């Protein structure tokens, strides 16, 4: 491209369709990888053959296939499939939030939990567990969602009169997070017994074991809406690269865009955390890895982060199930164990380590 560009401005145009085709190829390829990963992940750990999975799917779709034994059918359909789908949705949501927040705050260490929303979710979950409503899984999820939204409300209240300046966002998020983390510890230590502490710790680390179709549906709807909103802001996010003044002079309404992006990422994080707990690391490393692959422009970065985040969490969850079987270890424990070496590899390739 560099050589071609020197010759003649007309030659400049030729690489463009090529580049576009390459982009399409990357998108198609990554989607294929995602679908294959999900199918494989459904199979891993169930001990079902391909034919049996085919029969499970066929039966549901009303195809004339030999019905599966009820137990196996229920295992695949009610437990495994929602779990894999939820892993994909949550992975995508966290990765996209991380990518957006890293650009909004111009801080490469930013991740979805920076805003304190997840700490609010844990407080909500702890309250539910300690009060003894934890019997139904929906109770914990509902409590976490309420806690996350309260933390989000507090964050916005504190940021209301500021210019939504990046360092203010980071500081306020940390303050809100610390407040709710302290509340969580306080409640847990003052009125929690050993069982509830164990239950909460498991939940805090993030576990997909409780995945049900309702959470899948809620996450899918919120993710679709959130992705569209942030994708429409991708040009503005690119503009943030050189700071507020340059962004504004490029025609980006900095305040409004930041507010829209903060609300969107907070809601996405809240729903993801409420569904599965605070799965760490995905939102931090996936955007960095994807930037390394396709560059920093958000039109490509955001969709691809979503797909890579989804694949990453689907695989990590599948691995967690196999490696620790029959123990149910929170996937959040494993994301860092898998993520750290991958991340170091990316840094080394980039020559930054």
């Amino acid at each position: 491209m560099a050589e071609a560009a020197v010759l003649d401005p007309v030659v400049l145009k030729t690489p463009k369709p090529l580049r576009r085709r390459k982009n399409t190829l990357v998108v198609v390829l990554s989607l294929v990888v995602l679908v294959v990963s999900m199918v494989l992940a459904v199979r891993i750990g169930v001990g079902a053959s391909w034919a049996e999975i085919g029969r499970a799917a066929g039966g549901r779709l009303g195809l004339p296939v030999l019905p599966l034994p009820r137990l196996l059918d229920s295992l695949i359909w009610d437990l495994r499939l929602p779990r894999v789908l939820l892993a994909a949705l949550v992975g995508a949501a966290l990765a996209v939030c991380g990518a957006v927040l890293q650009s909004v705050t111009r801080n490469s260490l930013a991740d979805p939990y920076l805003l304190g929303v997840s700490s609010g979710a844990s407080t909500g979950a702890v309250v539910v567990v300690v009060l003894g409503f934890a019997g139904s899984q929906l109770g914990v999820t509902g409590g976490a969602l309420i806690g996350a939204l309260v933390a989000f409300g507090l964050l916005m209240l504190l940021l209301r009169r500021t210019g939504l300046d990046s360092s203010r966002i980071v500081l306020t998020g940390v303050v809100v997070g610390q407040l709710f983390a302290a509340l969580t510890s306080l409640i847990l230590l003052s009125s929690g017994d050993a069982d509830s502490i164990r239950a909460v710790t498991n939940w805090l680390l993030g576990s997909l074991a409780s995945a049900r179709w309702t959470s899948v549906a809620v996450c899918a709807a919120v993710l679709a809406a959130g992705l569209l909103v942030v994708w429409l802001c991708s040009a503005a996010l690119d503009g943030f690269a050189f700071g507020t003044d340059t962004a504004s002079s490029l025609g980006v309404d900095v305040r409004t865009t930041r507010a829209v992006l903060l609300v969107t990422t907070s809601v996405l994080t809240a729903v993801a955390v409420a569904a599965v707990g605070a799965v760490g690391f995905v939102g931090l490393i996936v955007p960095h890895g994807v930037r390394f692959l396709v560059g920093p422009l958000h039109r490509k970065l955001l969709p691809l982060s979503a797909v890579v985040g989804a694949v990453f969490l689907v695989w990590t969850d599948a691995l967690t199930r196999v490696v620790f079987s029959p123990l149910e270890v929170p996937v959040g424990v494993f994301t860092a164990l898998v993520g750290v070496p991958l991340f170091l590899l990316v840094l080394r390739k980039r020559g930054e380590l």
Partner: protein
Amino acid sequence: MENLSWGVPGKTIVRDVTLAVEPGETVGLIGPNGSGKSSLLRCVAGLRTPTAGVVRYDGVEIASWPARERARRMAFVEQTADTDSDLRVSEVAMLGRTAHRSRWRGPDAADHEIVAAALERLDLTALADRPWKQLSGGERQRTHLARALAQRTAGLLLDEPTNHLDVRHQLELMELVGGTPQTVVVALHDLALAARYCDRLVLMHGGTVVADGAAADVLTAPLLREVFDVEAEIGRDSLGHLAVGYREPVR
């Protein structure tokens, strides 16, 4: 610009400035550090809301425009705008098309042509694919200017654009700035460069305009003594350009 003032709490940085810039004019903004040049430029660019006074563009108050409208009329280049991001030169220049593009689609063929032309004008075509981190200070400054040109605005506001440039690129850039049909307001430290390429000089001191007019009327020994606290001699170099020589500062 009428009776424009701007300040931070407890300090007024731009005081009661009134300036009119004619279309196509190149106005050089000069003055010592802290005299309010950058703040004034930011007010004119619509990036700061003046505490008093208004900025008008073709008779319309710019505060009434949304950011997008503003960015199609005026481009602004900051003194130092850096990034950690791995953007390439052509991608930075493409940022200039932000206000011209729909949110729904990426850059089209016309955008690519405009960016290619802007890079060509700043001698950056060969560097189009170079990542930001590998650029020298001067190359970064030129990339920002290419981005501003890609905005295709009638107005161009530049805050010390020659800062990191070597002599050749300083001259080339000022040729370009002085020669463009765009209306330019440029803050400069190099008085001789300002005198040579600007149609008009505005001298600022302590947030106010102390002189406004042709270079020969603004760059006078008494004014420079008053504003910059230097003993200067103004003459012509052997090529006939205005030159400023300074004596040792007296302590």
